[in-house]
C-alpha cells in the first residue's frame, strides 16, 4: 500500500507548489465573562439540550447524588472506586440506608461487558472542565473512569466544578495546553444522546444516555 501513499503524495506534490499558504490568526478572541456569567451561560445552554443541572456545593453534592439516585429509583449506580469522587460517595452511601447498590468492576470492561450493557442503570463520573459558551462538559476518560461510563448506562450523572468553566472551547484548548499531549480519548458532552433523523423531530436517548444530570459545584 505504500505505493498508494507515494502516488497520492506525488500528485499533491506536483501541484502543491502553486498553492499559497494562508495567513491565520489563531489567537482566540475570548468574551470577557465573569464567573457568574459563565455559570449562567453554562446552565442555560445545558438545560436547553435537556440536561438536568443542579447547583450544589463542594460539601453537599454527595447528598444530592444520593437524593437523586433515590428519586430516580435507580437500581444501581456505577462509580469509580479509584476515581476522584469515590471517597465521598462511599461515605455518603455508608451513612444512608436504602440507596441503590453501588457497583464497581475494577477489571477491563471486556470482562463484564454484558452487565454493563444490559444491567447498569446509571453511572457517575467526574469531569475535567466545561465550556460556558455552548454548554458542554469536557471529559478525558482515565483508567479509573473509563470511556464507557459516560456512554453506556441509560443515566449519566456528572460532577462539574464551576471553577473549571472556560469561556469557550478554544480557551479550554489553550489554557489546558492540549497540544502538549492528547489523551487516548477527549470528549465534549452536551446533553443526553439524541437524534432528529425522523422528521427532524428531536428524540432523546438514542444510543447513549437517555438522561444527563449535572451536579454543578459552585
Amino acid at each position, binding site marked *: 500500500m505504500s505505493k498508494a501513499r507515494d502516488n497520492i503524495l506525488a500528485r499533491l506534490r506536483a501541484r502543491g507548489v502553486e498553492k499559497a499558504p494562508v495567513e491565520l490568526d489563531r489567537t482566540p478572541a475570548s468574551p470577557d465573562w465573569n464567573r457568574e456569567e459563565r455559570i449562567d451561560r453554562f446552565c442555560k445552554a445545558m438545560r436547553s439540550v435537556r440536561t438536568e443541572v443542579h447547583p450544589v456545593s463542594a460539601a453537599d453534592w454527595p447528598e444530592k447524588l444520593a437524593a437523586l439516585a433515590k428519586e430516580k429509583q435507580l437500581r444501581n449506580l456505577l462509580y469509580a472506586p479509584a476515581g476522584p469522587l469515590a471517597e465521598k460517595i462511599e461515605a455518603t452511601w455508608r451513612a444512608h440506608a436504602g440507596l441503590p447498590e453501588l457497583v464497581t468492576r475494577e477489571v477491563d470492561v471486556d470482562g463484564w461487558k454484558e452487565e454493563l450493557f444490559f444491567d447498569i442503570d446509571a453511572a457517575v463520573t467526574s469531569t475535567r472542565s466545561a465550556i460556558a459558551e455552548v454548554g458542554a462538559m469536557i471529559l478525558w476518560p482515565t483508567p479509573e473512569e473509563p470511556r464507557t461510563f459516560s456512554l453506556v448506562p441509560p443515566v449519566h450523572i456528572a460532577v462539574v466544578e464551576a471553577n473549571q468553566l472556560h469561556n469557550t472551547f478554544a480557551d479550554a484548548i489553550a489554557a489546558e495546553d492540549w497540544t502538549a499531549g*492528547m489523551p487516548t480519548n477527549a470528549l465534549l458532552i452536551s446533553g443526553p444522546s439524541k437524534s432528529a433523523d425522523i422528521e427532524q423531530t428531536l428524540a432523546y436517548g438514542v444510543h447513549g444516555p437517555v438522561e444527563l444530570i449535572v451536579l454543578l459545584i459552585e
Partner: protein
Amino acid sequence: MQQKAEFDQRVQKALNNPQLRRNFRIAMDGLMEKRSNAFPDKVALEALRVTGANIRANALAKQLELLEQLEANCTRNGIQVHWAETIEQANRIVLDIMQRHNASRMIKGKSMVSEEMELNHFLEAQGNSCIESDLGEYIIQLDHETPSHIIAPAIHKSKQEIARLFKEKHPDIPYSEDIETMTRSARKVLRSKFYEAEVGLSGVNFAVAETGTLCLVENEGNGRMCTTVPPVHIAVTGIEKVVEKLADVPPLLKLLTGSAAGQHISTYFNMISSPRKPGERDGPTEVHLVLLDNQRSRIYADEELFDSLRCIRCGACMNHCPVYTRIGGHAYGSLIPGPIGSVIEPQKFGLENFGVLPTASTLCGACGEVCPVKIPLPKLLHRLRYEQVRSDHTGATIGQGSQRSAKEALIWKLWSWAHANPAVYRGGTRLAGLFRGIIPNKIGPWTRVRTAPKIAPKSLHQLAREEGFDNE
C-alpha cells in the same frame, strides 16, 4: 444524453410524489430556520465564515506536509495509517483488517466516505454483516436505500413510512408512529449489535495533523459506541479532511454544527488520538485510519475547482437549495446530492456520467451565501458547465467536452455572431417586432405552464431613438 433522460425520469418521479415533496419542504424550512436562529449576529457569522474558509484553505495549501505530519503523529500514537488511491483499495484494506481478526460483524457510525466506497455492499458480498447504527442510516439500510441527504439520510421519509418499515422488518415490536418510541426500539435492536460487533467503523470530521487526532461530531452516541466498544476501530476518511492545528477545530466545529442543524455544539464531540493504552480499561486495542484519495488529488490540481475540497459536509447548501428542496436527494442519482454534490460528483465520477448535475441549478446563489467555508458553489457549477462543453481537451476534469453537441455548439456560434454584430442584432429585433403577430405562441417547454411573452412592436433601440436619447 442518456444520463439526462434518466435524471429527468427521477425528477419526474420525485415531483409527482406529493408526500416526498411535503417531507422535503417541511424539513428544509425547518433546517433553514434552525441555522438562521443559531447565528443571530450576521456580522459575527460572516467573520466566522472567513475564519473557517481560511482554516480550510490553509490546510489544503499545506495538504502534502500535513498528511505526512498526520501520519507521523498517528503512528507515534499507535494508530495504524493506511493509504488508498481508489475505493477498491480502501475496501480491501478494511477487509484485510477484518480477516486478520477473524471478524465478520461490523457496526458502523455515519460515514459518507464509507458510502462512497460502497463498503457495506463489498463486505456483505464477502459474507460479513455491516450494520448502520446512525438512526437515519439504519432506517435506510432497512429499506435498502441510499441517503437522500448527507446529514439527515432518511429525511425523505415521513414517520408513518418509517413506522410501517419498522413493523415490516421487526414484526415482534409493536407498531408505533411515535418518534420517541420508534427511536427507543431502534436503540434496543442496535444495543445488542454494538455489544456483539467485532469491528467498529467511523468517518472523520477533522483529522488534526499537529496531534494526530481524529475528531468526530455526532448526537446519538452511536459514533462513540462504534469507536469505543468493539476491539477494533477503523476510521475512513478522505485525504482532504486534514487540518493543521488543534486550534483550528473550534471554529470549524461551531460552523459545522450551526450550519447543519442550528446547534451551538453537537451532543458529542469525540477526539481520538490513540488505541487503548496499557492500564486503560476500555476502548479498542487497535485503531486504523484509512486515507482515501479517489480523485481528490486530481481535483486538487485545478486552482479553481480545488475550492470544493474545503467542504466540511454540513449540508447547508442543500438545505437552502430550491432545486434540492423540490426534487430531493435521490433524484440527483449521486451519492452526495445538492449543490456540493453537483460540484464534487462529476469531478469524481466524470462529466460523462454526472454532467447533467451542474446544469440543474438556477445559479441563484443561495448555496454560496450559506456555505460555512465560503465555497463559491455557483462559480464552480458554472465552471463545470464550461468543462463539459469545452472542445480543447486541455482541462483536468474527467469527461471534459463529453456533453458538447454539434447542434448546440452551432446555435451558440450563431447566437454569438448575431450579438457581436450590432447591425445583425438590430435587424433581427426589428424583424421580430414586425412579425410578432405570426411568431408561434407555443415555444417548447416554456409554454407548457406559462403563456408566451409578447414581442413588443418597437424595440428599446427604436424607442430610444424616437424619444431623442443620444447614441453617444
